[in-house]
């Protein structure tokens, strides 16, 4: 069904747990959006979240860097530990947490600033650059990693909002990697990209995996199979199945998983 040869280098080896989630529940008002989810996100690993639309992938992703705090009606319960430390603890500063756990949103949201300032935003507020030359270098490197450098190198002063949808998406990826997060959460980062740009972003994900852990939400089974080592399948707010990507795609345990990846539900 899927070409398992391509990810034979995604060797199965156990790594340190980066984020440990236990008994997670999320409510939007009275809607129970995430039910009893237990997941371990491993370090230096790409974890893919798949599942039909509205099943709670984005919601769960937003729990991992406390972005749900910004939604008034959202309530998050359960335990989320980053490197063994509870991230919903009162002593944890969500601002610092989000610097460590970066995010690329489902809808591209460039700031109404120049392309350069968009990418330099994170490094500037966190003081990552010693001088202008340093910052220039960070910006260029990030834009290259976001696979958009060649398209924008001549118009870094143009507004980021003037780019096409797919370019904006890559700009947001570049913006997120510029702060060098330890965990990068990517919510459908390739939904508006052509195959070439998609391949470049996947390359970036692979490169990030050498040092960080990446969580990616995707609706493309092929993409999940190509880039991830672990896959989690969500359905109606439940985590149905979580395991090695190869295992999930070739030999799913749950019938719902099987029907989803073969295209019968979702």
């Amino acid at each position, binding site marked *: 069904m899927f070409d398992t040869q391509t990810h034979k280098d995604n060797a199965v080896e156990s790594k340190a747990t980066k984020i440990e989630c236990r008994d997670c529940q999320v409510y939007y008002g009275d809607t129970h959006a995430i039910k009893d989810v237990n997941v371990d996100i491993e370090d230096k690993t790409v974890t893919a979240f798949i599942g039909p639309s509205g099943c709670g992938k984005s919601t769960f992703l937003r729990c991992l*860097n406390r*972005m749900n705090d*910004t939604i*008034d009606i959202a309530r998050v319960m359960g335990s989320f530990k980053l490197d063994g430390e509870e991230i919903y603890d009162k002593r944890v500063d*969500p*601002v*610092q*947490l*989000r*610097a*460590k756990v*970066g*995010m690329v*949103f489902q*809808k591209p*949201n*460039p*700031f*109404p*600033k120049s392309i350069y300032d968009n990418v330099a*935003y*994170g490094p500037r*507020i*966190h003081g990552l650059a010693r001088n202008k030359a340093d910052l220039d270098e960070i910006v260029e490197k990030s834009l290259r990693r976001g696979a958009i450098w060649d398209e924008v190198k001549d118009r870094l002063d143009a*507004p980021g*909002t*003037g780019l096409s949808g797919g370019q904006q998406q890559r700009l*947001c990826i570049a*913006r*997120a990697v510029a*702060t060098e997060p330890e965990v990068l959460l990517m919510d459908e980062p390739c939904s508006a990209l052509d195959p070439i740009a998609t391949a470049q972003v996947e390359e970036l994900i692979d490169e990030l995996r050498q040092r960080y852990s990446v969580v990616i939400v995707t609706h493309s089974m092929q993409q999940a199979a190509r880039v991830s080592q672990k896959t989690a399948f969500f359905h109606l707010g439940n985590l149905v199945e979580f395991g090695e990507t190869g295992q999930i795609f070739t030999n799913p345990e749950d019938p719902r998983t099987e029907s989803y990846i073969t295209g019968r539900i979702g």
Partner: protein
Amino acid sequence: MNAGLVLLVVVALAAIGFVIGRSRAISTAGGDARGLHSLPGYYGQTVFLFTAVPALLVMIGWLLFQPLYIDGQISDMISDTDIAEGSSRSLVMSDVRRVASGLNTALEKGIVSETQIASMTTDNTDVRAMLGSAGIALASAVEQNILTVAKEYRQIKGTLGLLMAGVVILIAAAGFLVSVKRIHPDYRARNVSERAIKALLIVASLVAILTTVGIIFSLVFETVRFFGLYPAKDFFFSLTWNPQFSGGSDLGIFPLLWGTLYVSFVALLFAVPIGLMVAIYLSEYASNRVRSIVKPMVEVLAGIPTIVYGLFALITVGPLLRDYFAQPLGLGTSSSSVLTAGLVMGIMLIPFVSSLSDDVINAVPQSMRDGSYGLGATQSETVKQVILPAALPGVVGAILLAASRAIGETMIVVMGAGAAAKLSLNPFEAMTTITVKIVSQLTGDTEFESPETLVAFALGLSLFVITLGLNVLALYIVRKYREQYE
């Protein structure tokens, strides 16, 4: 037949037209509305429009020109000998109109009959007493020739009124018939009513534009007369403002302009930072509950009449500033001062800045905030670097609105800063503004045709030009620094 009745008839005809048009449309389509180009209601609407609009337009035009025509006719009948010493033709004309309408009233009340009016002369009737009993008081006895003209006036008016009713109703009926005839399943009634609505909207916007143009013209007209009496050079460049009743005044705008700008500047200095901070607190930091209490409370400030602010300036702020700041610092002994007026005006302007800014800040999409928080920015960093730049055009608009209010404010200035036109940098000194002087010049005892009164129009025009300039400036700023978000 009076105009109101004609209007009623036309509207009734149009309403009938709507019903008939609608049912005729359905019947031409063989009872099946799906066979029509448009919904049946649209056919009714076209009949309504064709019946009412042309007829009413003619009626409006007629009503506008009828008095001009009658006056022309009547005026010719008044010979120069009828005009008494010290009187004028227009006074006699108004006498004629008064007597004519008095006769109508008397007729309605049953005091006289139509035939009595026809045979009425000043010899056989005491017209003044008769009209007095009908409730129309006249200053002097009515002369025979005035009475004759008045009777003629009544007659012409009556005939023209009937004529108008006939013509208007005829036009309405014609429109009715033509538009009912036109109904056909393929007739694009929907497009016709679309165009009619567009025309309606255009007319509405024309009203606004024409009003502005009218205001400008009346100002310009009087200003030109002023400059005929007083040299423009002195008005713009003289540094003194010193109107004299006996003539020989100094009417330099400069001290007033300075006062206006100084007071407004002080007011904005208070209102803009505080208002912006209130807006940021309300939209970014306050919980929904706090917001729902604080926002209306701040907006109450905008509803307080300016005269109340003026009282506050006069009895509280003014003496306070004088006793605790001006006198100890040796800067003045007046309780009226630029600072008093500016401060109180600033308080008044806070809700203008905060409420509008709050709205535009709220309109910045949540995804912008998410993007910034997602990169590990704090709330204040997000506000400073993402939200305010994105909301800038709206914030500039809010500040501009506040500035226009400040420049046009009168009451607070009179009571807070006084009425003395002075050129000084000291904020504890009494000064005054353009608006205050417009009021005092127009309400003074001097003759209308004197430069002392007409200067009010020149001042008004200058004020208009200043606010216009401010608007243009703001537009430029907004264009230049606008940061788009989709």
